[in-house]
């Protein structure tokens, strides 16, 4: 009962303080609002980017090993690029060798990607990514077909001019009709659309299927040089269930070395990449951004706390004689302490709530324009309110304790 009467009274006092000194209160709350906004906004963006990255990595396949010329890791001024420059690119025959001999592989596909202009009647779209892949591509890469179908084995093997296009492309080229069954031109060559990818949205790693055209690699031979270094030919190998990436890499290393007739002392002339390399690089980046936001936001909240402490000192000073009267009528020290403490927490929570509200509104606006889902998570809301309550307690305790220790006689006399 005492708690609730205290709680009610403190809310009334806090509202009175807010209403009677609007500008002063708003300026004090602004510190907390900006601090909570800064911290929670950074965390929300980092969390959303991380989620998007995980989704992108998952679509690449976290159990897929990529046999390529260039390794993904490294970079910077010390990157020994000259060691990799003269390496041969993986070729289609090596895919067959892997499929025949790799026990740990569930499926494998050869893939090259290039840009081309895609046309349909008078409409044309430039710089469309054209993926030229072998038949098992659908078993290595995670994607869904919304309309139509994937290539049959015969279409892939014989190199029929068929293709699966992305949702964005389908809508742009065929605005009021189904894309399936239509014929588009890729690099001037006719391609019959047999399927449309399910819309996935923007990917942080790029390469969203929404804007891609997928054609059989055997058909692509007539359009491009599939061993062209610039098209980054690669063999994607998915591990069997129960086989770890490390086991698969170990087996593929042996197979590729034997296929390329490398002596035991020779360095491998191929790279075996996996998606964990990308996630590790991004994890480091997100950690740095998170820590920067944490430090900047942390200290701005601390400064906001000083603002709340200041307003509470003023509040105690203004109501010193009321405190004296309350104490002379029998109010205990803890009652006075709790009264001011609640007021400070309430003010701080209002500041935090406004900060969270701004973040929420911005996520709604930014989510639409950024093309990816930005969500204010439950953990960030909990964190925002926790910080607000704590800053209210920490910054309000000293003035509240000072008020509780006032001598009633001296307090009543104060003007």
């Amino acid at each position, binding site marked *: 009962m005492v708690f609730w009467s205290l709680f009610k009274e403190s809310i009334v006092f806090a509202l009175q303080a807010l209403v009677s000194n609007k500008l002063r209160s708003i300026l004090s709350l602004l510190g907390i609002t900006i601090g909570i906004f800064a*911290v929670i906004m950074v*965390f929300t963006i*980092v969390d959303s980017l991380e989620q998007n990255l995980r989704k992108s990595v998952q679509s690449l396949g976290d159990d897929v090993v990529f046999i390529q010329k260039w390794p993904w890791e490294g970079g910077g001024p010390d990157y020994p690029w000259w060691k990799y420059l003269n390496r041969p690119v993986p070729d289609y025959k090596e895919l067959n060798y892997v499929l025949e001999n790799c026990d740990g592989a569930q499926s494998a596909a050869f893939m090259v990607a290039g840009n081309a202009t895609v046309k349909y009647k008078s409409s044309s779209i430039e710089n469309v990514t054209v993926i030229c892949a072998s038949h098992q591509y659908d078993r290595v890469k995670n994607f869904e077909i919304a309309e139509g179908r994937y290539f049959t084995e015969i279409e892939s093997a014989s190199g029929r001019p068929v293709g699966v296009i992305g949702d964005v492309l389908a809508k742009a080229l065929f605005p009021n009709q189904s894309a399936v069954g239509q014929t588009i031109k890729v690099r001037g060559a006719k391609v019959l659309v047999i399927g449309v990818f399910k819309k996935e949205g923007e990917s942080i790693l790029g390469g969203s299927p929404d804007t891609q055209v997928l054609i059989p690699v055997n058909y692509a031979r007539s359009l491009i040089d599939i061993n062209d270094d610039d098209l980054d030919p690669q063999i994607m190998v998915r591990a069997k269930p129960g086989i770890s990436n490390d086991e698969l890499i170990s087996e593929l290393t042996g197979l590729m070395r034997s296929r390329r007739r490398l002596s035991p002392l020779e360095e491998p002339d191929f790279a075996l990449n996996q998606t964990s390399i990308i996630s590790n690089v991004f994890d480091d980046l997100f*950690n740095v951004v*998170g*820590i920067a936001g*944490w*430090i900047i*936001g*942390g*200290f701005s*909240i*601390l400064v906001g706390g000083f603002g709340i402490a200041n307003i509470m000192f003023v509040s105690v000073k203004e109501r010193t004689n009321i405190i004296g009267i309350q104490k002379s009528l029998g109010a*205990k*020290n*803890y009652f006075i*302490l709790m009264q001011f403490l609640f007021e400070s927490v309430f003010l701080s929570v209002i500041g935090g709530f406004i900060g969270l509200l701004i973040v929420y509104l911005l996520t709604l606006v930014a989510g639409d324009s950024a093309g990816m889902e930005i969500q204010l998570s*439950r*953990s960030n809301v*909990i*964190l925002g309110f*926790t*910080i607000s309550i*704590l800053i209210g*307690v*920490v910054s309000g*305790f*000293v003035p509240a*304790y000072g008020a*509780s*220790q006032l*001598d009633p006689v001296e307090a009543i006399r104060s003007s």
Partner: protein
Amino acid sequence: MQGAAIKRPVLITVVCILGFTWIVFSFPGVFAPSLKKLGDWYPALFGILVATSFISYIGLWHMKRWGVQLFLISFFVKETLLVLINDVSYAGLFLSVFFICSILPFYKRMDVNL
């Protein structure tokens, strides 16, 4: 009537100043990404501990027994939490034990009131 203020020993003044400094620098740690990764409620728990420690230092500064009691409670809860998440810092543990050893001899001289 309020009781007469008890003179604060230099050792407790030093402990309080070190404690307040620790609070200022550890408060931003409440929303450290590493803590957030442990679970939704860990930042809140750590924040409550920081706030409790801060209040206990104020109690100690005013030579109040509740300050010592609150300090001990927050110390044990904090260490239990650190053991649970397997992140015990021996330097922090040593410093806290040093603080407790410094303030306990003055406990009887402290005020029992709020």
